């Protein structure tokens, strides 16, 4: 209902808006390619709370959800149909959209979008049930070496961060394990670990952090370059001798379609990182166990380019 009211408000304001006014003169839409209430949607709603402040955009941001097919529906829409006048922004999830574009069958690539800023980074972690015999990645690798193809581990789907981390772990350890993608996403994959259906799993750090606090799982390793502030005691994959970098880290941020006026991109690139840095955003993100990483447009451009190269190499021949 709120979205409808926002949409109405937008169309009314569009009609009455003065031609010379400065961007943005009406509320801005933010398309999220995942369902309402999911982690990405939830964080996007928090990250855009201060948008209406005078020193930020000065206009509220309204979220619209276009979920389906692991984000492909929303990003296809964003590449093909979204207006490139600066009033429609989109949320990105890296490595998801880049991996999907390399795999093919979608209408977008990194060239279809212009990044604005990054708000969050959620690394993938390797989890096992609380009663599991595995206590380190070395235990996992040893079991996988002794029983090729028998180590079942769950994740949220194909060509998402979890799957990328799974591929990297297998490649680094030189073992063959059995990745089980879950149709119900990260929550379903976590359930499979908790109920002991699979021997392990790759999941989001934020969800694993909560599950560990609930006492249902153990976290064995973080697939990132450094340890995470939420889990200072959990070593990285690198520390455990596995050559796994931060390619699978789920970066979340906002972008606009290609062809958006440069003046608009500049304005957004200047204000959006400050909006993410607002103390109310930081406070709510911390309470929700969502790790933040604010990056400006240039940093995101560099990150996208780097991912494109790494993922092309990793997914070749798959």
């Amino acid at each position, binding site marked *: *209902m*709120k*979205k*409808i009211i926002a*949409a109405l408000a937008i169309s009314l304001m569009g009609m009455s808006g003065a031609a010379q006014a400065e961007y943005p003169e009406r509320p801005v839409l933010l398309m999220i390619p995942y*369902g*309402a*209430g*999911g982690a990405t*949607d*939830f964080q996007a*709603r*928090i990250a855009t*709370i201060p948008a209406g402040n005078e020193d930020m955009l000065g206009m509220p941001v309204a979220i*619209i*959800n*276009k*979920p*389906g*097919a*692991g984000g*492909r*529906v929303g990003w*296809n*829409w964003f590449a*093909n149909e979204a207006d490139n006048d600066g009033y429609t922004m989109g949320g990105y999830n890296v490595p998801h959209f880049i991996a999907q574009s390399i*795999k093919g*069958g979608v209408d977008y690539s990194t060239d279809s979008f212009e990044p604005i800023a990054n708000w969050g980074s959620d690394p993938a972690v390797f989890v096992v049930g609380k009663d599991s015999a595995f206590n380190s990645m070395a235990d996992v690798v040893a079991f996988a070496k002794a029983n090729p*193809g*028998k*180590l*079942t581990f769950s994740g949220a*789907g*194909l*060509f998402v961060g979890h799957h990328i981390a799974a591929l990297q772990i297998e490649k680094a350890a030189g073992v063959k394990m*059995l990745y*089980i*993608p*879950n*149709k*119900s996403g990260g*929550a*379903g994959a*976590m*359930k*499979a670990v*908790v*109920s002991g*259906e*699979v021997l392990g799993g790759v999941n989001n750090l934020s969800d694993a952090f*909560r*599950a560990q*606090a*609930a*006492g*249902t799982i153990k976290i064995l390793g973080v697939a990132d370059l450094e340890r995470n502030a939420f889990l200072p005691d959990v070593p990285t994959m690198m520390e455990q001798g596995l050559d796994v970098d931060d390619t699978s880290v789920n970066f979340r941020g906002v972008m606009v379609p290609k062809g958006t006026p440069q003046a608009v991109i500049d304005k957004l690139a200047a204000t959006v990182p400050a909006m993410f840095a607002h103390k109310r955003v930081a406070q*709510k993100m911390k*309470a*929700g*166990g969502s790790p933040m990483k604010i990056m400006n447009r240039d940093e995101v451009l560099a990150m996208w380019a780097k991912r494109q190269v790494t993922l092309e190499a990793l997914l070749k021949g798959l």
Partner: protein
Amino acid sequence: MDFIFYFGEVFTLTSMLLLIGGTIGGLIMGATPGLSPTMTVALLIPFTFNMTPVHGLILLGAAYTSTVAGGAVSAILLKIPGAPANIATTLDGHTMAKKGEGAKALQLSFISSLIGGLFGVFLLIFLTPELAKLANEFKTPHVFWLAIIGVTVIGSLEAGSVVKGLLSGCIGMWLATIGFDDIQGVKRFVFHPALGGGVNIIPALIGLFAIPQVITMFSKGRFQTDMEQIQVKKHPIAAAFREVFSRKRALAIGTGIGSIIGLIPGVGGQIAGLLAYDQAKKFSPEKAKFGTGHSEGVIAAESANNAMVGPSLVPLLILSIPGSPTAAVLLGGLVIHGIFPGPNLFIEYPEVIWPFINSMLIGQILMCIFGIYIASLAARVAQVPQSVMAAVVLGLALFGSYAVQQSMGDVYVMAVLGTMMYFLERFGFSAAPLVLGLILGPIAESNFVSGSLMASAQDGTFAFFFTGGLNILLVSIVVLSIGLSLWSEITAKETER
């Protein structure tokens, strides 16, 4: 009995205002096609950012409870289920409304929702740790078998022939395969960009139920309307209570099945109503009356879908795993206030979690009171001339299918499926089994594929799906369910001779 001490928090002025507002708003949202409980809760979450955790959760709890019940209003009066949970309510509820008994059907639906809902929340209060263990027992093969149990219901769901019921189910299952498959990573039947994300259940539901009606209403022409004046009967509330309590079997079956199904992560309340309806029919001595406006049908379906609300929160609160889309949204509402679900939730945050659960109890009662109040007014919908009604239903269908994700693609899907259903209905097929196929297809498929993958690392697929007590129990229910359907078909044939 800790929960009793936290009622004080619910009876403050702010809490009560939120509770009443959430309940009335939830009823209206639930009654609007396209605004499902999940969506209502998701839309409310940003409003709770500025509230205290207790107030925020009270609002979410009240809205969740009442949207589920509110879906019955459009199911009964317009034959458009507000959400998948209300599909079974249309079967007898709408037939009652057409006979002028809309007020009675709504009263029965809200009273059974109240009883089912209270039972579900009491389970949540007293048995949460035990239920969490039970929920953990349901693994991939068991969820697969549950979906198959649902499939066995398809054939016997509507009075017509078993074969046509099963064929409708097959069409639904085929529709469910459209889109991008996440497990195998391939595109299936994507003929048009609008189908990239698959057939979304809510637009499909609206199209399949609403459009055939709209076409029928328009095709009748405007001159017949005056002749079809329906006498709307008043129905005393006390009689409605007596009626519900005299149908103990339907009430017990609905409440029991709803509570169990709600508990199982990944199945959700979508099929609770339909399973309960089917079982109530199988165990009723008055089988033939089902589908003709029989009160047991409404009672079983509506007690089931509200009984599921309480237990559906068990996996979320104890295991920190959301078992349904709505629970996933509620999880967001909890963590925003720094409250992490888990076994210690009731020890660490009793001052938040008990008022939340208590407010769901009070919310059920408020929902019933307001629901019965609107029942007497809403039942007059049956007197609206058909030509006006057709336009209203068409408008709601367009609005509802667009509102789900602001997508014109969904509106096309709704219109195409609805037009197809109009012709299918003329050949004796019906919408309910088709929708059930659409819901169960993906559950059965994904659990079978995941299960086979897991089985390849263990003792093979057969052992994976057929060994273990729970597997054998569920397979037996499948066999029994098919057997019962065949038996009633055979005996029905013999009495015809």
